């Protein structure tokens, strides 16, 4: 009995080795096949593209900028990786005739002088603090946490399975004289209304 079990174990160990080897070979083949065809869209790229579109469909009051030519400043509260990617993707883009400037921030006070703030999921604990800091300034606040709109945020990313959607809280934007185009509202998954003040 014990001899049989031992044999079985040896056979299994051998099988495991072969199996693992086969697995890696298979992965290798698929890897090269996949490379040949090019990659799909990453979450980061897609979010960057959405952000760019949001910038196009939101109007800031004139006093939000110091001059006609100052760029739209985007502050990112979150991972460095996203900031870098966003900066490179927006480097040659313009909205309302203005170019973009992307920076990563670590304190909510820095957000006040920007036109767009994106607060990533990893910083969700600081959402209240950040929204508090920008409450009176014409800053478009964009988040990706569950209660972002309820907390007073303006645009919130949500995933519907693997597709990116967004929700809008137009009242929060109007309060600081930002106007969100009707097109954006129409495409939103949810438009928050009736928040009491």
């Amino acid at each position, binding site marked *: 009995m014990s001899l049989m*079990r031992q044999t079985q174990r040896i056979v299994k160990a051998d099988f495991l080795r072969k*199996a693992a080897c086969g697995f890696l070979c298979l992965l290798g083949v698929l890897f090269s096949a*996949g490379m040949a065809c*090019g990659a*799909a869209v990453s*979450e980061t790229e897609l979010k960057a593209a959405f952000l*760019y579109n949001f910038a196009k469909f939101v109007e800031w009051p004139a006093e939000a900028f110091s001059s006609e030519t100052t760029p739209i400043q985007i502050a990112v509260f979150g991972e460095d990786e996203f900031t870098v990617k966003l900066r490179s*993707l927006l480097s040659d883009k313009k909205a309302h005739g203005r170019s973009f400037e992307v920076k990563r921030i670590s304190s909510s006070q820095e957000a006040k002088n920007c036109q767009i703030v994106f607060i990533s999921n*990893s910083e969700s604990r600081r959402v209240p603090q950040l929204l508090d800091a920008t409450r009176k300034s014409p800053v478009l606040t964009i988040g990706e946490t569950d209660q972002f709109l*309820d907390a007073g945020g303006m645009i919130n990313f949500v995933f519907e399975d693997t597709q990116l959607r967004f929700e809008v809280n137009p009242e929060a934007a109007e309060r600081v004289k930002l106007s969100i185009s009707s097109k954006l509202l129409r495409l939103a998954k949810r438009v928050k209304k009736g928040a009491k003040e």
Partner: protein
Amino acid sequence: MAADHMATSGTNVMDMDLEALMKIEVTSVSKRPEKLSDAAAAIYVITQEDIRRSGAASIPEALRLAPGLEVARQDSHTWAISSRGFNDEFANQLLVLIDGRSVYTPLFAGVYWHVQDLPLEDINRIEVIRGPGAALWGANAVNGVINITTKRAKDTQGLLVTVGGGNEEQGFATFRSGGKVGEDAYYRIYGKYLNRDNSDLPDGSPAHDSWQMWHGGFRFDWEPGVQNLFTLQGDVYTGNLNQAVTVPSLNAPYSEELRDRVNTYGGNVLGRWNHQFSENSELALKLYYDRTDRDRVVFAERRDTFDLDLQHRFPLGERQDIVLGLGYNVTADKLDNRFAVMFNPTKRTASLYSGFVQDEVQIIPDKLRLTLGAKLEHNDYTGWEVQPSTRLSWSITKKQTAWFAASRAISTPSRAEDDIRINRQVFPPGAVAPFPALVSQFGSRDMDSKELIAFELGYRIQPHPRVTLDLATFYNIYDRQRSLEPGAPFVETNPPPTHLVIPFTIANLINGETYGAELASSFQLSEWWRVHVNYTAWSIQLHKKPGSNDPVLEGAEHDSPHHQLSIRSLMDLPHHLELDLGLRYVDALFNRNVPSYVAWDARLGWRPNKNWEFSIVGQNIFSQHQEFAPSYIQTQTTEVETSVFGKITFRF
């Protein structure tokens, strides 16, 4: 449509308008509702996307994704699932919750996994916490907590239909419909059916364990304003499970195999109110009623449970976050005795009340966090119990966290440990005595709660933006574990014929240690290719305490695998194809005569657009193997066969 997908990398996306962007599918959704990296516990989250990509056909299969869990299929419908040792069909040190409703049966403290059969598409996430969660969750959260939450009704709007079938999964279907009532209320209703084939006996002939299950339910969420969320949800299910059980008999041939068709049905309704006072302060009130009913050839059980739970979270000063909780649970059962399994008394009501407090202190904000907590509870079996824990989390850098925890947890005796008699085996006349000799196990009202003192140390690091490593280690000291003590044989005349009883009575005379390490890692090799590697090592020593004559102690040391390895590869290929491959190695269980095994799983999915998904899943592709073996109730020992099924999902 295909153009959207292939018109990919980088700058092209920037030139698309919103409508086009909304059609794009993201390759990896890494979104997690909360930051796990600084949690001071061995926690792993299985997301909806993980479940979908795994090809799992049931919750237990999805649980194989978590490191550190032992998930073994005992037969077609029965699973043994545990963490950090002591695995069994009736594993009693793991707490399992579905939307806050405890689903283990207080009878054995095990989980009947086949009736926890939610549509997998409705699951929001599964949190798996290895190690004690008792300070928050209470008794029986000794070796782990599995916390399954379903999606909000708001997130399941529209229509979902899935149908599929294969050689083992002989047919399954899910229907779900979600809608909106007025401005602030959402609902979903669903129904599910499945039919699973027999597994194989080791000699290749079919076992008697096929089963069918029907499941239906609803969820209704009402969100009047920002501060309140009301939820009402419920399920009903009914199923038939084939089972063959070998039971002892006092007449020749002294044992018989009974072919059983187990009828099981049940239902529950749960209400919850969440009220948000402010950003950091909220109140949650939850109550539920649950009924389970099961008629087996070896015993029958009907159980009603009512549970009430109140939690309040609020900040105290700048740096402290307090959670207070109060709970009350009452469960009443009615059992039918058969010769193999008997309970005395056959009806019993047990109540439990509890309170807990947890204080999370930011010693150095965003750097060093201390969590102190304790649960105090009173149960009808052992009276008052205190379960404290201390957790410390240190964020060394943004990408590195170390944590430490020390906890005490207990598992209270189950109804069976108090009141059961299991007649295990009959020796024919002449073997031991001139008349038949019956080996019986007895529960005991002297049974005390089993204790664990656990020390855990963990480390997480993201050495590269595309790599995460999560290591958890533990040293557990167990005391007053269950032993089986032989007693003095006695003669019994009822039921006839006259026979000798060789009794074994359970006691708390075992202590021991377990220790081990669990590693979870993930590698994003490229935008379209992700690999997860999990490894678990586990070791145990058990010792008899003075006065113990337990003859089977050694065996219990080998109920869990010493090594487990899992490798999963998830690939997003062109043309909306997904290819997911998995490899699992599980070490032998010597006590159960289960050899080590390697299992291969694969899934090929195609999502041509957002409405349709087609997939082919192969589980355990190249080998047929045994994963576990029954202990207390002698059902058939079976092997898991290769299963291939196709599945079509339609969403609208």
